[in-house]
């Protein structure tokens, strides 16, 4: 019965979204107050229905009701409670329901919080959002329903993919989806603005907070995914330029461009068309990510529910979004206005270059990701684009971004601003740049990485100067905004330095060790003290006790797990973190030697300064959050004044 109620609630959310579209449209066209209230109530109702449906799905997982196909395919009665809950979004149908919950959540938030001073634009946006909800809820209800039933009920579930049974990966998809789906608000507001013929400034002001929030969540989601890959996949990589990773990176880049371009548009009306275009593209790219993960067109470690039919649905949705949005853009962008213009060394000019570089990176990543697909469509199979392409094409653009990043905050809006003082200041930043480059040289980084480190040093000096120079800003809102900017920019520098350190030759040793035997990498001696059974509720495990000596003695406990229900073996690595980096140990297959002695494959790696990546990601997320708070405070103050 629970499954049937859940199915009905999905249908109800779909029906309410239709009402939201129609009444929102009528409210925007006629100014009808009842229609406006119906649109808002439809949005709240759809949210309540979707949230309850999702809650019911979680209950079905907690009950291990294997009469529901999705539960049977992704759960097991012995799975720990946390992962029973996380399995609700661990597969295609459940994650699509979560996506829809967030989408209707954005619809309700638009109806509740957006644009109190411009009801017409708000109603149009709520209506457009209702349209998006119809597309995705329709897909959910008719082609990916998580409440579908099985007539032949299996005695046990197939379990969730073991590599997904991990705390970071349980949190990673919801966070990522907040980012993906949050960009739908920017899309709806941009489309609504184009329909209503609003100027660029109004649209930019409306979509800025939503974009900033979505981009922050997207950053957190991507960082969690990278962290998971680092410790779960067993060999210490954190970014693979995998098609699905790229699918999250592209909307991140576009959203990063959008939040910068929207600032300029709001300030001076410049880049109005470009801002609207980015808002449309950001959510379209998010949908493309969903298409790549769920259609089966690309092979990826992340891909799940490989179903061409479902892929066609999402392709259809993507076509409607991109086709509809861009057609509207083509016909209406002229009404957005041209702005006040700007000088070549104004802040707008630098934001423009920043946007060009971000768009160039997004373009090269898009090309590299889709190239194998296009070649396959032309009958050329076996084409793959690897990390070498992405590193070679994206790195120069990202380095250029790092160079320009610290200068922009010191430039005035519209006017020429490259003063003698700024020239002196930026000359002083060269010294930290040289020091960082020297550091990279000493740790034997590649020439590209040395250059990146030098640019990062330069940028960090600029960011610190930005904080020092603007410390006199008055008001909490301005301080939050400044803190946000500085944190986010410093976070980018930390990530760049972390990537530099990662690109150096990591010491790695792989050996078969029997009890009492040792393995060495520079600075560390590791002894396999013993292997014991450490079975969990739904897996069998061997756990090695490895004693580490490098002046002080500590122990690491890597595991090798066998998940019987999924018939899958995983490696649970053990990591000893320090300022210098991570000692990273994984336990592999046991093998009998000729003597009959059992030896385990032990892989030991030292990943230098990998913590910089985590620190950078945290700083960017905190920066985004701080900027969002600053923005909200500023709007409140403006509202009070007006």
């Amino acid at each position, binding site marked *: *019965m*629970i*499954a*049937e*109620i859940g*199915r*009905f*609630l*999905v*249908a*109800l959310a*779909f*029906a*309410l979204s*239709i*009402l939201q579209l129609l009444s929102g449209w009528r409210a925007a066209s006629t100014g009808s*107050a*009842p229609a406006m*209230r*119906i649109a808002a*109530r*439809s949005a*709240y*109702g759809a949210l*309540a*229905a979707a949230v309850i449906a999702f809650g019911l799905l979680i209950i*079905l997982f907690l*009950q*291990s*009701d*294997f*009469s*529901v196909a999705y539960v049977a395919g992704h759960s097991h*009665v*012995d799975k720990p409670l946390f992962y029973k809950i996380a399995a609700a979004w661990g597969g295609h149908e459940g994650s699509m329901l979560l996506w829809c919950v967030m989408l209707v959540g954005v619809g309700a938030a638009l109806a509740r919080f957006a644009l109190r001073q411009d009801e017409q634009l708000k109603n149009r946006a709520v209506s457009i959002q209702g349209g998006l909800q119809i597309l995705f809820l329709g897909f959910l*209800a*008719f082609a990916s*329903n998580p409440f*579908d*039933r099985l*007539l032949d*009920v*299996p*005695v*046990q579930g197939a379990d969730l993919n073991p590599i997904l049974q991990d705390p970071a990966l349980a949190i990673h998809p919801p966070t990522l989806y907040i980012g993906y789906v949050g960009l739908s608000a920017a899309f709806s507001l941009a489309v609504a603005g184009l329909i209503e013929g609003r100027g660029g400034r109004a649209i930019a002001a409306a979509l800025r907070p939503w974009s900033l929030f979505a981009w922050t969540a997207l950053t957190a989601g991507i960082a969690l995914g990278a962290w998971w890959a680092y410790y779960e996949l067993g060999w210490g990589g954190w970014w693979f330029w995998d098609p699905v990773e790229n699918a999250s990176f592209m909307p991140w880049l576009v959203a990063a461009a959008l939040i910068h371009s929207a600032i300029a548009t709001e300030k001076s009306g410049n880049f109005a068309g470009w801002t609207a275009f980015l808002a449309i593209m950001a959510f379209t790219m998010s949908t493309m990510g969903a298409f790549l993960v769920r259609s089966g067109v690309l092979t990826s470690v992340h891909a799940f529910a490989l179903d061409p039919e479902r892929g066609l649905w999402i392709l259809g949705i993507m076509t409607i979004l991109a086709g509809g949005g861009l057609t509207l853009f083509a016909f209406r962008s002229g009404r957005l206005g041209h702005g006040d213009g700007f000088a070549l060394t104004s802040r707008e000019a630098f934001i423009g270059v920043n946007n060009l570089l971000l768009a160039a990176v997004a373009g090269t990543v898009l090309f590299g990701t889709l190239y194998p697909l296009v070649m396959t469509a032309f009958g050329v199979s076996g084409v793959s684009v690897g990390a070498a392409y992405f590193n070679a094409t994206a790195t120069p653009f990202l380095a250029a971004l790092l160079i320009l990043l610290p200068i922009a905050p010191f430039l005035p809006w519209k006017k020429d601003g490259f003063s003698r003082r700024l020239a002196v200041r930026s000359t002083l930043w060269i010294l930290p740049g040289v020091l960082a480059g020297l550091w990279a040289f000493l740790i034997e980084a590649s020439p590209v990485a040395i250059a990146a480190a030098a640019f990062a040093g330069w940028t960090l000096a600029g960011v610190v100067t930005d904080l020092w120079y603007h410390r006199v800003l008055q008001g909490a809102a301005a301080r939050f905004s400044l803190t946000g900017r500085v944190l986010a920019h410093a976070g980018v520098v930390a990530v760049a330095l972390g990537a530099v350190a990662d690109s150096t030759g990591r010491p790695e040793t792989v050996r078969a060790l029997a009890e009492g035997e040792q393995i060495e990498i520079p600075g560390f001696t590791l002894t396999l003290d013993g292997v014991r059974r450490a*079975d969990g509720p739904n897996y*069998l495990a061997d756990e090695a006790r490895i004693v580490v000596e490098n002046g002080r003695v500590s122990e690491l406990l890597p595991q090798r797990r*066998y998940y*019987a229900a999924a018939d899958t073996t995983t490696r649970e690595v053990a990591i000893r973190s320090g300022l210098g980096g991570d000692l990273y140990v994984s336990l592999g297959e046991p093998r*009998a030697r000729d003597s*009959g002695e059992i030896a385990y494959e032990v892989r030991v790696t030292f990943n230098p300064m990998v913590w910089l990546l985590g620190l950078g990601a945290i700083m960017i997320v905190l920066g985004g959050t701080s900027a969002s708070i600053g923005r909200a405070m500023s709007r409140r103050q403006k509202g009070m004044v007006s």
Partner: protein
Amino acid sequence: MILLAIILAVTAFVFAGFAVWPAARLRPRWLAPSILAGLAGVAGATYFAGAQPQAPGVPYQQAAAERMATNPEALGQAAQMERLRDILRTDETDAAAWAQLGRMLARSERELEAINAFQRSLRLELNARTLSDLGQTFINLNDGQVTDEARAAFEEAQRMDAALPEPGFFFGLQAFQSGDIDAAETIWLDLIARLDDRDPYKILISEQVFQLLSQPQVNAEAVEAAAASEDFDPRQRIADMVQRLEARVAAGDAGFADHLRLIRVRGMLGDNEGGMDALQAARDRFAEREGAMTILDLLAAALQTDEGQGE
């Protein structure tokens, strides 16, 4: 079904009513009810595309209770295993259930899980039969090779119950796999002689021993090399082998395995009469070895059955 229909109707009314409420006092009067009906209609139509309101939910607790109330023999293999797991979820100290689960898992070729189940059982209660099953699962996991782990399990099993037939068989198999055919032969024939005639393992082990000892001893590389040559004639090679075996039997220096090979190859070539002659020669030679005579009696019965069918 009726309860579900009531719940769905109330849900639809509450949600649609909430959304449409601002239109309640609008004119025309039919507007609000029409929107309400439209909403309910769209939701209902969407719901019925794939709904199965008649299918009951099957929460695991309920399914487990139904399994426990069912005669295990009436259940399929997967359900039987799950029934044992249900028992163990409520009582992890049931050694017999762990052992039984281990056997079922082993039969399903899920050796790693079976070994875990046997070990859980043995931690609770040492049992010769479970030890022997554990040993056999180790062997299955290692593609039929009798490993030291398996041998240790069999030794412990035999120490606990000397009458258990499996340890002896697998000790013989380990000797056979290491190339010591004579030692294997001795262990097996002594084991067969020791077993009671009514013990079903006696026939099973005898058949296995015959299959193993009568395997032709060939050098795989030499056969491969010969097969690659142009003048390779497989029938001629078999004839040569039969000739060599006959010569050894005639000279009286053939072992029991040689006799079995000769019987087998003649049987395979359809020469039942020749097979019976070879069998008689073996009987004459090994009349005093009870284990050998058991195997030969089985072969005689098999050859006579073949002959009867041929007539």
